[in-house]
């Protein structure tokens, strides 16, 4: 004990000496000011875009951020992707603060909470960083522009037109939704009913059932739908959980290929059902294009082409021209159709 103490004493003393020495050194070097050398690389006009997804390791955001990386590369800027492991707002705040301190020219973020990251974004804006939200918005006052993946009208129309195409524009259809009180689902269903009444008078919506975004419930509701409505020709499921469960049921039933199924789904979940012929075509926005557009919007804010007010317009590389709409929203466009010809190009 005694000798080890002496040894530790030596180590401790050495550590303290080093600490004091380092303190002395860095005090001296404060003359050279580390913060000054810091602003040196941040103060230049180079485009430096920081992508902050809801969380890392999420295939959806890997796809969107890959689009962002391509766009920033095309613009000759510096791209980085940082973010928390778990999708929580407090963890995102740390990355917003860091990006603001580094004087990043823009932050492109999918918000984990519309309000909780607000103060951090406001501070970032005050220090000159432009803020673009994509996928999931904050309250409008906290960001410059929101790049919206799809409008409710576009989402409704894509699915109605899709089912009409697949069943020959006439016959009975049903909707398999998520929860009965899900706001976005109900908004889409209302718009789909409007579209059906206006453009597809021979298609009859006979039932709307709710799978609560639960795989088993959605599976059971699909089975029940097919039993109660023997003449059913098609199902629309505007939820990724619902469409996957319905496809799983259909793929093993004798209705496979006879009852059409479409809706909103992700390529990774739906791949096998497209390949085995259960599903012809389904829809979702393309996250890679979403990230690409968000990066171009960020660059346009940085170089002053747009300020985020309604009517501003900018060019987004291969996607063409875009306009800022009401509330600083930029709309990506119509959803992308996924079918056997293109599904293997996507991984999310």
């Amino acid at each position, binding site marked *: *004990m*005694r*000798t*080890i*103490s002496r*040894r*530790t*004493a030596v180590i*401790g003393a050495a*550590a*303290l000496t*080093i*600490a004091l020495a*380092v*303190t002395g*050194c*860095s005090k001296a*070097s*404060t003359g050279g*000011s*580390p*913060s000054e*050398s*810091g602003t040196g*690389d*941040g103060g230049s006009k180079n485009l430096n875009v920081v992508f902050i997804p809801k969380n*890392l390791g999420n295939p959806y955001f890997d796809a969107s951020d890959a689009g962002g990386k391509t766009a920033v590369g095309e613009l000759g800027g510096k791209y*980085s992707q*940082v*973010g*928390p*492991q*778990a999708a*929580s*707002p*407090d963890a995102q*705040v*740390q*990355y917003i*603060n*860091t990006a603001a*301190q*580094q004087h990043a020219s823009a932050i492109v973020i999918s918000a984990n*909470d*519309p*309000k*909780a*990251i*607000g*103060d951090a974004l406001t501070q970032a804006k005050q220090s000159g960083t432009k803020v673009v939200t994509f996928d999931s918005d904050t309250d409008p006052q906290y960001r410059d522009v929101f790049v919206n993946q799809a409008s409710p009208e576009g989402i409704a129309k894509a699915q109605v037109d899709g089912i009409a195409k697949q069943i020959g524009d006439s016959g009975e259809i049903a909707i398999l939704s998520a929860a009965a009180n899900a706001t976005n689902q109900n908004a889409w269903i209302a718009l789909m009913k409007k579209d059906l009444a206006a453009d597809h008078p021979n298609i009859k919506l006979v039932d709307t059932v709710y799978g609560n975004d639960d795989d088993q419930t959605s599976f059971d509701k699909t089975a029940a739908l097919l039993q109660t409505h023997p003449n059913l020709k098609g199902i629309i499921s505007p939820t990724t959980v619902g469409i996957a469960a319905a496809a799983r049921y259909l793929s093993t039933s004798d209705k496979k290929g006879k009852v059409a199924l479409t809706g909103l789904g992700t390529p990774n979940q739906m791949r096998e059902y497209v390949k085995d012929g259960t599903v012809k075509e389904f829809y979702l926005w393309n996250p890679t294009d979403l990230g690409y557009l968000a990066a171009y919007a960020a660059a346009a804010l940085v170089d002053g082409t747009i300020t985020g007010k309604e009517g501003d317009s900018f060019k987004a590389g291969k996607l063409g021209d875009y306009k800022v709409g009401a509330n600083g929203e930029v709309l990506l466009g119509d959803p992308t159709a996924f079918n056997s010809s293109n599904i293997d190009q996507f991984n999310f």
Partner: protein
Amino acid sequence: MSTTTYRAYAHPLWRRLLLTREAAVIALVVLVSMWAYSNVPYFGDTLTLTYLLLDTTTILLIALPMTLVVITGEIDLSVASVVGLSSATMGLLHEHGVGMALACVVALLVGVVCGALNGFLVGYVGLPSLAVTIGTLALYRGVAVGLLGTTAVTDFPKDWTSKASQVIGSSGIPSVMIVFAVLAVVFILLLHFTPFGRGVYDIGLSSEAATFSGVSAKRTKLVLFVLTGVVSALAGIYFTLRYGSARGDNATGLELQVIAAVLLGGVSIFGGRGRLPGVIAGVLLIGVISSALRLQGVTVNVISIIIGLLLVLSVISTPVLARLSDAAARRSRAKRSSAGPQTVVSQ
């Protein structure tokens, strides 16, 4: 274990203070800060200090009572759920028009109740705290999420939310640090300078021996779990105001960050050993490392790996040092013909 602890008192006070694990952690905080100060761009800004302290306040607060709990040989895994429950309570009350001050008081009372349930089950029923608090971790979180569902309450008055991230003058130090400093002093006095605090160590070293020497392990544990509950609830109030958002899932997973910091600060998971200054340094060390690495553009998984390795190394270092020290003691005993009083005890 006990012999090591008492043997340490054979050294003069200055040496005991200088050579402890916490001294090493404090030195490490200083060294890492100095390195980052001169090598990491923007680390020298006062903003770094502000953000670092704002981000670690929740952990700093909960680490205080957690240290005492771990020194008794127990653990409280439900703290982050209490943060969530306190946050959800505040949100729910505010939504129903209850005044902010009253909402905060009720949130603190919720913390007392949560802690009392843990403390009763551990202290008086005699159940293992690991099992009890894994249960209440799920229970309290479930209630918290149930209270608010998937919604968040965000319309807290601005004069309350702005206080949470307010800074003292131009120092860059958040005002909430005053609350922490007061609590830190209270807990340091309680643990290191009162009979209650000595009881805490006694229970950790040997619960039976502590009981024989007149320390009530039951009551002490109940008090400690209640303290942990109420401080976690306070942290929940801070968390809610800082982000202006009350959600049932606030601070999910925070319990492991608190316990990691406590262990890094030199507290033994088996109880009986550890000091608060070391724990505070442990929290700051993790904060400084994360902050510096983030500013360097290091990704979150690499930061996790580094902090994880640091924690494992610090845990390994304790038995390794103890073995080295025993070997050295034996050597020095062999050399001396007459043994000093401190060599009478050995393992």
